[in-house]
């Protein structure tokens, strides 16, 4: 009985709460704000102190990225790209370089080009290309993001490429945990001498295929994602408030309650927009 009274006081307009659900009072909203901020602080602390308990969640096998890439090529009438282990290692080296030097770009601050990773591993190319992605939690989202970007899509669907290498690296970039995906595309320079075809940002060299190398490690984690946790909590809080506001709107109109306060419809619209953003916002960037 007491519980029911408390819930009524909290969620339904009544004499006990001055004809406005207690949860909608500015004092209660302030408590919710403080709770959300405190939650974020605890989330950061837990992640920093116990990274294996709460951390960045990503399950991105390089082989899956390659499979999805080739699926897009097949769907567009192109031949599949062969996975080249030298390119895999070169892509891994590029990812580690980005983490070590703290940059998120094709060219490093010290001028190191993506193509230098090809050549440093002995891969001599006629054509070369690079796609980068970070903070995606699964390979499908990353490949979809690339396909939705004209320049990245062009790389994936370029008929000049015959080989691919993918590196997936976890680490900290700009103080935040991240998973970087490096996609290297290339065609080896043929043994027969020919006029090299130079594209912007590329140079051509004699093709060398390296001897078989160990398979690069697969970056796989199985943590609870801070982003998904935040998204879930935000969805819950906003959903509850929207529900209470809807009940408030109906009850106030039915009982013809006159009170001082904001327009419930306006609050519904604003929180509705917040909910839409929560649902649409995704983790991940491409470059």
């Amino acid at each position, binding site marked *: 009985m007491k519980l029911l009274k408390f819930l009524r006081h909290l969620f339904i307009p009544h004499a006990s709460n001055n004809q406005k659900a207690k949860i909608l009072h*500015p004092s209660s*909203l*302030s408590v*919710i*704000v403080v709770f*959300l*901020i405190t939650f*974020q602080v605890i989330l950061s602390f837990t992640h920093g102190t116990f990274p294996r308990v709460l951390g960045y969640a990503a399950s991105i096998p390089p082989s899956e990225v390659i499979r999805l890439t080739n699926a897009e090529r097949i769907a567009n009438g192109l031949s599949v790209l062969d996975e080249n282990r030298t390119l895999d290692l070169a892509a891994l080296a590029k990812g580690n370089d980005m983490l070590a030097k703290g940059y998120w770009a094709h060219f490093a601050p010290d001028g190191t080009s993506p193509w230098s990773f090809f050549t440093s591993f002995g891969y001599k190319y006629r054509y070369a290309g690079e796609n980068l992605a970070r*903070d995606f939690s699964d390979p499908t989202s990353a490949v979809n993001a690339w396909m939705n970007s004209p320049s990245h899509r062009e790389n994936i669907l370029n008929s000049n490429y015959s080989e691919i290498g993918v590196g997936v690296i976890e680490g900290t970039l700009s103080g935040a945990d991240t998973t970087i995906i490096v996609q290297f595309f290339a065609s080896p320079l043929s043994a027969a001498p020919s006029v090299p075809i130079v594209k912007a940002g590329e140079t051509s060299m004699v093709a060398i295929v390296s001897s078989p190398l160990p398979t690069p490690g697969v970056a796989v984690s199985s943590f609870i994602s*801070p*982003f998904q946790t*935040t*998204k879930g909590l*935000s969805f819950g*809080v*906003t959903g509850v*408030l929207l529900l209470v506001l809807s009940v408030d709107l109906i009850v106030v109109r039915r009982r013809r309650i006159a009170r*001082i*306060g*904001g*327009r419930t*419809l*306006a*609050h519904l*619209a*604003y*929180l*509705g*927009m*917040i909910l*839409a*953003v*929560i649902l*649409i*916002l*995704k*983790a*991940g*960037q491409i470059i």
Partner: protein
Amino acid sequence: MKKFTKDLPHYLSLFGILLAGFAGLILFSYDKNFQMSVAFATAGAYVAWGIVHHAIHKDLYLETIIEYIAIAILGSVIIFSLIIRS
């Protein structure tokens, strides 16, 4: 319903503000700082709308302004936390 119809121009302007905020947050997803600015501006515009709306209706009170500010801060905190974590 009658009141809503009478206030339709007010609510249309509010929906315009929220639509612009939503579009800004989605379109500029590549720039976190700008996203936060858009979220902050939308919250500010929402509070401003509330003040103007209630002033026109001659029922503007301190409690009303505080209520809009509280809702705006709550929405902003939610958006900021998502942007930071993304």
